[in-house]
């Protein structure tokens, strides 16, 4: 294990105050904070070798290109991709999934086909498929959430018909923390000849992910949730699938030869990276991967399991609070969604903010799950990362006790 107090010193933002209190940052499922080494990588790029990539013969361009491609190599190693050429840099998970929807699905989904997803998706892995099936005349079917907040696989065999072309699912729910049996779902998809897309936005930052072990065809994640910069994300695509795909965006950087009439495409993965890429952010993500690798993903996971276990235990002290998500920590990440009697999450978040505690309130970009399955207008959500501490969980619980007392008094005043 690592020394959490030493790790905290790596993140400059964690020493700031909010409303006169030390910041307790528990909104990591929305975005994580950044270590100094990642920030330095961005500053170093812009200070020393900012240049466009893949074209100039001058020193700066070669340095920038080398650093950009080294970052791709580091990230490929991090998820155990066979080659860096399997990785396409995009802005974020949503863009990665849209790339698959516009490139692969537009060419391969036909009338009568089926896409299977789940009830616990973030909008980014639901809305693109709603559109893709509507365009193709295909249908979208969903795996259900079970009573214990796990993913219900009991209907999987019926859902996976020979018409199923794609199974697109989250590896970790951003609302419930549920970790899905990704390897099992991928194998089931392949048995009926469907491809499998894994939304790994919440999993890659928190657990060791091996794309070759999962055997998935697509895997998408964002840099900013894993100590990297905003504006950079990754789509991994298996080689034999990628080779069959047409470009999503066309223009500069992605071509081999252009005449006034037509163009041919650059080699993979540049064929899918039209225009000047976000070079600094890619290099920053490479630095973030270095940071996570040095700590060890298994250590990070163990830290978050211990912290979440502690948090769930302390939540039990709050009678009026209900938490949502699996109780089995082997299938749960460091996410705790909760409600507090008739006190709206927005009011909870406001009181906590006054105590320096940052949580998320609302539907967490999973409106159907929160409203139609949990039957809630909104929840409050605390989500942990590698630098959070038990003392911060204590600050959360103290803040919730204050919230409860204050609104409890207010609600009993008239009754």
């Amino acid at each position: 294990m690592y020394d959490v107090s030493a790790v905290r010193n790596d993140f400059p933002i964690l020493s700031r105050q909010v409303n006169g209190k030390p910041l307790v940052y528990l909104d990591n499922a929305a975005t994580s904070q950044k270590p100094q080494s990642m920030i330095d990588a961005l500053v170093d790029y812009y200070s020393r070798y900012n240049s466009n990539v893949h074209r100039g013969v001058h020193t700066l361009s070669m340095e920038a290109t080398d650093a950009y491609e080294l970052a791709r190599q580091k990230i490929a190693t991090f998820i155990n991709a066979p080659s860096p050429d399997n990785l396409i840099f995009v802005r974020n998970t949503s863009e990665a999934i849209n790339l698959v929807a516009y490139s692969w699905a537009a060419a391969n989904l036909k009338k009568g086909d089926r896409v299977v997803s789940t009830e616990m998706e973030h909008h980014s892995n639901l809305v693109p498929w709603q559109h893709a099936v509507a365009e193709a005349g295909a249908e979208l079917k969903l795996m259900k959430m079970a009573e214990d907040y796990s993913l219900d696989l009991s209907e999987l065999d019926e859902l996976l018909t020979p018409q199923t072309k794609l199974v697109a699912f989250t590896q970790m729910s951003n609302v419930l923390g549920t970790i899905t049996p990704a390897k099992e779902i991928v194998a089931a998809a392949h048995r009926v000849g469907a491809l499998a897309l894994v939304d790994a936005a919440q999993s890659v930052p928190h657990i060791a992910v091996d794309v070759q072990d999962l055997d998935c065809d697509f895997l998408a994640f964002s840099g900013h949730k894993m100590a990297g910069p905003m504006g950079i994300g990754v789509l991994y695509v298996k080689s034999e699938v990628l080779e069959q795909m047409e470009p999503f965006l066309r223009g500069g950087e992605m071509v081999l030869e252009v005449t006034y009439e037509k163009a041919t495409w650059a080699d993979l993965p540049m064929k899918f990276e039209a225009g000047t890429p976000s070079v600094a952010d890619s290099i920053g993500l490479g630095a973030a991967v270095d940071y996570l690798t040095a700590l060890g993903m298994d250590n990070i996971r163990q830290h978050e399991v211990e912290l979440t276990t502690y948090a769930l235990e302390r939540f039990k002290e709050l009678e009026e609070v209900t938490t949502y998500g699996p109780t089995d920590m082997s299938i749960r990440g460091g996410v705790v969604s909760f409600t507090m009697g008739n006190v709206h999450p927005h009011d909870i978040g406001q009181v906590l903010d006054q105590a320096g505690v940052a949580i998320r309130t609302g539907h967490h970009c999973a409106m159907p799950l929160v409203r139609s399955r949990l039957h809630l207008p909104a929840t409050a959500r605390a989500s942990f990362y590698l630098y959070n501490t038990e003392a911060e969980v204590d600050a959360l619980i103290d803040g919730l006790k204050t919230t409860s007392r204050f609104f409890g008094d207010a609600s009993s005043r008239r009754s």
Partner: protein
Amino acid sequence: MQAPDGLDDLYQDIILDHWRSPHNQGALEHPHLHGEGFNPFCGDQIDLTMTLGEDGRINDVGFVGQGCSISQASASMLSDQLKGKTLDEAEAFVRMFKGIMQGEEVSDELEEEIGEIAALQGVKNHPIRIKCALLGWTTLQDAISEYRKTAS
């Protein structure tokens, strides 16, 4: 219990009273005006119904909703003051409240006129909550606009 430090301007007793026991609860059966407001940011919802008397003035108001204390208290306070207003007056009332939320000075006369609603002035110190406070009011504006469209 005293509001947590720094929040006493937001969570005033009168606001919490309206949150606990909102006034004019329910949906009117045959409303002349109907508006539905939704704030996707936090999931707040307001359903507002009103009837007009023969003199064209609002003679009954009902609202149902769910959401944070500020959105529901603000809608409750608004509903108290709508009865007897013409639609023009109601629209001017909405403009007045939006002005307050945008930081316009509230004169003593205005403070007198708006009564309990003055307690919502603290919301403007918490910009992210302004949308919550406005939800009932924008729903009212939408209902009036819709009514004018279909009535003309």
